[in-house]
């Protein structure tokens, strides 16, 4: 951690700083607290012959309402590592961002590309420290000098390494497809089809998942982020245009007030350029 944390090393234990603020807000809002945006979600990943394929749907829900139809659930961690996130949308976004920053600093400090297992260890430590309060279920995939790897990290900090995984509310449907279709050493197209079918199963059978399918293919040659890989067949077609030309709202009056600015202090500092 000495190489990756720019700010202070994380303090031990759970951070209770926001508890009193939350309590005050809850009292003030009298029970009408906003529901956190969850990604509902179907995410999946598979290790194939040359690397890893990650997939995700793009629906974010806030209780029964679809909050975002084109949510991006495959997050960047490092040039060779990407992470799919299920659970509370803010938690997955911020957690992956935090680890991505740390991995960048690590790379700069050490001169090395980060390994997938390093990202997994940092995430496990973080999520375990917060005892499940950070609602993030993640699937990490990447290719490093030791090979292609796929890990899952649960919200309580449990880690599992597998050649194929599915998480999120649609994972039961997706896992069925994965269990049936997975073989060791798949070709790229077979792997993409498998992940697509797994996410599709989640989209069709889970209310929390829907819309498009995003794929991310990671090999030692690079990353192919395909967004979208498959578009939803239910695209809405807006019948009206909502752009209004300038002048639609008539200007009734026009007042110009010049602001009087006064020079209070003037300082000249010589810059050392020699």
């Amino acid at each position: 951690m000495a190489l990756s944390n720019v700010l202070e090393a994380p303090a031990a234990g759970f951070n209770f700083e926001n508890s009193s603020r939350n309590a005050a807000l809850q009292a003030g809002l009298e029970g009408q607290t906003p529901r956190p945006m969850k990604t509902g979600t179907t995410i999946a990943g598979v290790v194939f012959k040359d690397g890893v394929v990650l997939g995700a749907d793009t629906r974010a829900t806030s209780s029964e309402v679809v909050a975002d139809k084109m949510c991006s659930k495959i997050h960047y961690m490092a040039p060779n590592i990407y992470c799919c996130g299920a659970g509370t949308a803010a938690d997955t976004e911020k957690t992956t961002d935090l680890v991505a920053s740390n991995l960048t600093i690590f790379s700069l400090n050490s001169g090395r590309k980060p390994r997938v297992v390093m990202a997994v260890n940092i995430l496990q430590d973080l999520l375990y420290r917060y005892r499940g309060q950070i609602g993030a279920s993640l699937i990490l995939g990447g290719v490093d000098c030791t090979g292609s790897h796929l890990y899952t990290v649960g919200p309580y900090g449990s880690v599992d390494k597998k050649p194929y995984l599915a998480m999120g509310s649609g994972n039961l449907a997706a896992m069925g497809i994965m269990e049936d279709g997975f073989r060791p050493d798949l070709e790229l197209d077979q792997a993409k089809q498998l992940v697509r079918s797994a996410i599709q199963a989640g989209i069709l059978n889970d209310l929390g998942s829907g819309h498009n399918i995003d794929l991310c293919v990671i090999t030692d040659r690079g990353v192919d982020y395909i967004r979208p890989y498959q578009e939803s067949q239910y695209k809405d077609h807006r019948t009206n245009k909502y752009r209004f030309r300038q002048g639609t709202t008539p200007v009734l009056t026009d007042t110009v007030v010049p602001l009087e600015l006064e020079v209070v202090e003037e300082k000249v500092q010589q810059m050392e350029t020699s």
Partner: protein
Amino acid sequence: KMEKVCDAQIKGVSTGTTILAATFDGGVVIGSDSRASIGGEYVSSKTINKVIQVHDRVFCCMSGSLADAQAVTKAAKFHLALHSVQMETPPLVIAAATILKDLCYRNKEELQAGFITAGWDQKRGAQVYVVSLGGMLVSQPVTIGGSGSTYIYGYVDAKYKPDMSREECLQFAINALALAMGRDNVSGGVANLAVITESGVEHVVVPGNKLPTFHDD
């Protein structure tokens, strides 16, 4: 949906489980099943590894909350490695067991994890220690743990003999695991075993379909 919590149940992923360790003439066998479950009804992993090597000749089996057990074994591995480097000698099995016990006892309010530690050291040879949920440390020649252990107390009491041969002890352990996995819904998958002797460590994995069958299977 995945975060179902019931009274006295594990939050998050639970290891299930059936774990055991038994000493034989010259070494020790330690083993577990490989199922991880959530809420007592969903198998989240069919092939989770619960037999963790904490040092060259010391292994431990985890039970309880998977997150807690993984965190504790990680910390224990670190402490044991440091201890071993400082002492300039391989650690005693009791040292490993005590480290786990300390972590479990001092954090008993927050943790839900129990362990079986088994290994071989120069001073006392093959040993088995069990660290229970609250942090009690006890040494026994044979011990079983986890939810599946309740179904095999009779078998273990009847069939275990001290100073068995390596093959007899391995078969005893495999049979015990197979019987427990057959009756306990949160134990299953493959049988992961490790045989630890002075000369080294041998990993034995018995897939579900190769496990011994009994009269009603």
